[in-house]
Structure formats: C-alpha cells, structure tokens
C-alpha cells in the first residue's frame, strides 16, 4: 500500500498547484541553463560557422568579435602568396541598427565570401541562398523579415531571399548575411551629411599638404566616390584555410611574427569570445543559476517539511501501530519525488512551449535536461531528508495525548 499516493489522491488540487508552482521555479532553472548554453553557442556560432583555420586581424587587437579590427582587403592576396595557405577571404561583421517599416531593426551583418560562399551551408528554413553578388540578403527569422521583402540599408535597397533559424550573434542580435562587398558597404555606410563633412575635412587637409594633386581633389569632390575614398572599405579580418598537412597553431605563431597583423586559430577565437566578450555574462548567469538552485532547494525543503508537519498525527499513529521506519521514510520520500517529477515535467513542457519565445536563445540538449533533472532529484532527496528528520522525531505517544 503506497501511503504517499493515497494521500495525494485526496488532495489532488492542492498537490497539483504546489507541483505546478515548483515547475515554474524549475522552468526558470532550466531556462537559465539554456540561456547560459545559448550564450556560449551564440558567441561561437559565427566562429564555428565560418570554418576558417586561422583568423588574421589588425595587429594587437582581439578582433573581429572581441574587439574592433580593420584590415585592408588586399591582405587576401598577400596571405595567399604564402605556400601554407590554401584559400584566403576577407570577412566583415558589425552590429548595426536601422529603421525599417517604422521599427528599429537591430542586426549583426555578416559578409559571405562570394562566390565561394553563397550561404548554402546555412540552415535555411525558407527561401534560398544568395544567387547574385549584390543586393540580396539572408536574414535570421528573429529579425522578422520575410523572403521577397525589400530592406533599405544606407543608399541601397536589398531583397531578403532566404531565412535562417537560430543564427544569433554574441550580442543576441539576429544575423543578416550579405556578400562580403555588400556587407562592407552596409557596415561602412555614412549618412550624406556625414560624408559631406568628411569630404570637406579631407579637402581641407589636402589643402594643407604639398601634394597639389588635382586628380585626388576631383575624386574627393566627386560624390559618387565612396568614402574613405583613398582606399576601399576595410574588412574586419582575413580568414585563412590552410594547405593540407599544415598545423594551424604553428602557422599562427609564424604569422604573428609579422609586425602588422595578429593571427588566431579558430580555438583561439573561441577563447577570446568565451573568456572575453561573454565571460561576465556567463559568470552572471552561472551565479543566477546557483542562487536559483539554492532558492529551489529551500522552497522544496519547506514544502516537504510542511507536508510532513501536516501529517504529524498520521505519522505518530503509524509509529504507534509499530510501522517500520521505512514506511514513514517512503511516505515522505515518495511524495517528494512525485512533487519533483511533476514539477520537472511541467518545466519540460514550458521549455518546449514558452522558451522559443524568449528574447534570448535558450539552447537545451540532453545534457542540459539531464543535469537539471539530476539537480532536481538531488534537491528533492535533500528536502526529503529534512522531512524525514522531522517525521522521525514525532513520538508515537502523541496519539494518546489526544
């Protein structure tokens, strides 16, 4: 005879409400765990997705994600000239905010190395990859854009041709993919007035030099010229794929001997992101998760303890009848386990139904579900211990006291 279930049978509503309340608490623990992992995945998504062996950035910067880095796109040819490099491509990314259809559209623009990379390896949920070198975009679903939708960014209008899902930057913004050249144009775009002022400033600086170059002056005055005029828009990094058999660590060390560039392996980039950009957020989330676990433990303990106190008379009666300690222990433990199981089930349900609508990506895999499940099991058993300790202190003679 399972006394725990028989007891719950008589107070389904009360027990159900308690379990659902606990489920909400467990759901928050689960969400924190998922957000924690989401943060890590979002941070390293682009690094992993770009598939480079080495990231070459501006000297002494931790670019392109952890710190701003600008490199001349011509470095592509320079680095290709080394025999260890199989391919080199420039890479640009930046978070920008523009107004689209009267709403602020915040996104992280990422350049794809046309024509080799048209976004075909992206996980598309609708539409297609890029088919032309210009004015086509692939957007993440989180940006709220639709295939065929026209988006004006700077002086150009682009068409969204495909949608991805779950492509988020370390800052939590949805990714917007364009060809590398388009990405640079979007990222480096300046308002007309800003451009006019820069032209004026450059002309003024030119007047103070002894260059006396009418051609240069004409180019500066020509409004069709793109700023910064004297050079093409910079990229943020050059991505290298090495020739077969090359060791990325050794090549990066070799490249770092150059006075004007810094080179990181993909793992180096991941470390920069995880130990730099998202480290504080990770610590904060980790702390929240720890605090929530403690709070959950206290709440579960109080609930189990209160449920045990409410059964003081029944437990005293069982003891008076000579029931073994195991009967009392099972009564407390089974209820605690059932409470934890229902609460966890409700948390799982919420994770499927509600978490996808969270502003930050919540990434939960078997490891996260298992770890939270084990945590809940531990909390519930620890809480049972408090209830059992209380139950074992109840004297059988309490019954005779009336």
């Amino acid at each position, binding site marked *: 005879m399972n*006394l725990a279930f028989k007891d719950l049978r008589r107070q389904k509503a009360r027990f159900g409400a308690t379990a659902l309340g606990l489920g909400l608490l467990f759901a928050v623990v689960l969400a924190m765990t998922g957000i924690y992992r989401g943060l890590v995945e979002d941070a390293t998504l682009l690094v992993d997705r770009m598939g480079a062996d080495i990231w070459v950035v501006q000297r002494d910067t931790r670019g392109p994600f952890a710190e701003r880095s600008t490199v001349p796109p011509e470095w592509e040819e320079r680095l290709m000239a080394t025999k260890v490099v199989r391919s080199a491509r420039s890479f640009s990314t930046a978070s920008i905010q523009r107004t689209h259809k009267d709403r602020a559209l915040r996104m992280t623009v990422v350049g794809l190395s046309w024509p080799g990379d048209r976004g075909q390896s992206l996980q598309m949920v609708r539409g297609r990859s890029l088919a032309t070198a210009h004015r086509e975009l692939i957007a993440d679903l989180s940006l709220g854009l639709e295939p065929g939708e026209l988006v004006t960014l700077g002086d150009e209008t682009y068409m969204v041709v495909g949608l991805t899902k779950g492509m988020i930057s370390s800052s939590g913004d949805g990714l917007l993919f364009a060809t590398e050249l388009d990405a640079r144009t979007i990222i480096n775009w300046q308002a007309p007035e800003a451009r006019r002022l820069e032209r004026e400033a450059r002309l003024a600086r030119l007047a103070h030099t002894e260059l006396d170059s009418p051609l240069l002056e004409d180019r500066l005055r020509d409004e069709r010229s793109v700023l910064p005029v004297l050079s093409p828009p910079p990229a943020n990094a050059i991505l290298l794929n090495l020739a077969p058999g090359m060791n990325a660590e050794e090549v990066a060390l070799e490249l770092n001997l150059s006075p004007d560039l810094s080179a990181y392996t993909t793992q180096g980039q991941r470390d920069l992101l995880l130990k730099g950009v998202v480290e504080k957020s990770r610590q904060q989330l980790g702390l929240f998760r720890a605090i929530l676990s403690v709070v959950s433990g206290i709440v579960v303990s109080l609930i189990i303890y209160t449920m045990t106190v409410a059964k003081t*008379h029944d437990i005293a009666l*069982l003891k008076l009848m*000579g029931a073994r300690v195991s009967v009392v222990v099972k009564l407390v433990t089974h209820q605690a386990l059932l409470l934890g199981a229902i609460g966890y089930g409700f948390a799982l349900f919420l994770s499927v139904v509600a978490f996808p609508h969270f502003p930050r990506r919540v990434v939960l895999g078997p490891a996260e579900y298992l770890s939270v499940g084990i945590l809940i099991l531990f909390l519930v058993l620890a809480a049972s211990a408090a209830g059992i300790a209380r139950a074992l202190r109840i004297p059988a003679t309490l019954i005779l006291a009336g």
Partner: protein
Amino acid sequence: MEAIRAENLHKTYGEGSTEVKALRGVSVIAHSGEVVALLGPSGSGKSTLLTALGLLNPPEKGLIQLLGETVVQDGVEFGDLPALRRSRIGFVFQKSNLIPFLTAHENVRLALAINDMEGPETHARAQELLDYLGVGGRADHYPEQLSGGEQQRVAIARALAPRPPLILADEPTAALDSQRGRAVMELFRKVAQEQGTAVIVVTHDHRTLDIFDTIFEMEDGMITTAGEPAQV
C-alpha cells in the same frame, strides 16, 4: 492463556520537586478472551499503565510478558518492541484516529500492510472484519464521511486485522453517546468471546461495567480494587 502479564510496574516522571510517581507497583493480568476494565480518576495512572502495556513507554521497574514471553524487565527491553506492537497489540483510542486519506477498507488493510501482508487475501480479511463489525457497507468511505460510531467500529476492525492476542483501548466511548458507547463495548465483548482476544479498556463509563470480566480500579498510581463487576 495469559495474553499479558504485568508485575510490579513502576514509572516515574520528572525529578526532584517535579517528580511524579505515575505507577507504583502495579500488577495486571489479562487472559485470552477476557475483557478487562481500568477505572480511575484523571491522574490515577491509567493512561501510563496503558502505554506501558502497549510497549510505548516501558516502566523503569517491573516485568511485562506477552503470551508468556518476557518483553520488558526492569527497564530492559527484550526484542523489537515496534515489531511486537504491530503483530501482537491492537490499539483503539478515544478518537478513532483513522488515517484521513484512506478509506475504511484501506485503514483496516493498513494494519496488515505494516505487517508485510499484501494481496487479495488482505482485501478479503478487511472486508470480512468490516462486515463483522457492521460497517461493511461503508468500506469505500473516508473517515470524514463516517459517523463517530462507525469510525470507532472501523478502528476496532483495524486493531483486529493482524489477529493480535491483545487489544488496548483508551476511553474508546468517550466521544460517543451512551447508546453508541454501549454498542462499542459490546463489540469488545463479542470480539473477546469469538476471537479469543484479550481486551483491556480504560474507561470512565460506569454504565457499561457489566460487560467486563475483570475490573481494576486505580488511584495514585496503584491498583486499589480488582475483581469482577459485582465485587467492585
């Protein structure tokens, strides 16, 4: 056959100025099939004697034997007292003390379950006892759905379930009107006669004394009178 023998029991609560001698050399014997009453005013030691006989509160001095087997002697316990309680002693209280989240049938089966008896035969045994005590039709009702008299009948069925040789009842009719109180006492008589169980009842109700075989009257922790109803 002696169901229980208690000899020269002594029990003291507190010490110094707060010391109370609750039992002072009390001796009681109850045979199988016998119904015994413990009478006496409040504070006379009846409940202390009942808890001592029920192996809940062993005396510091004296002997207690169950079915001829010594279980407590001069404060030393022989054997597993909770195990003896669950298999050899049935308890009935002033209030029925049924488990509120179990039906009448389950309350009776509980006494069997804690003796490791499960299965269809326990269902049959519980129903048989409820029928025997006249509450078979209320088997699926929860205690709150039963009257006081019905609850006491279920409690007696529970006490009888593991077929204990001894039932201890602490003022079982105190919460009942006289008619229902007498009916419960007559049930004890019936149980003792038909099942061979020894029943010891602590009671204040002098109107039902004719039901008992032996009456022990207590005062100040001692037995002052002992004998058949006509002699007391």
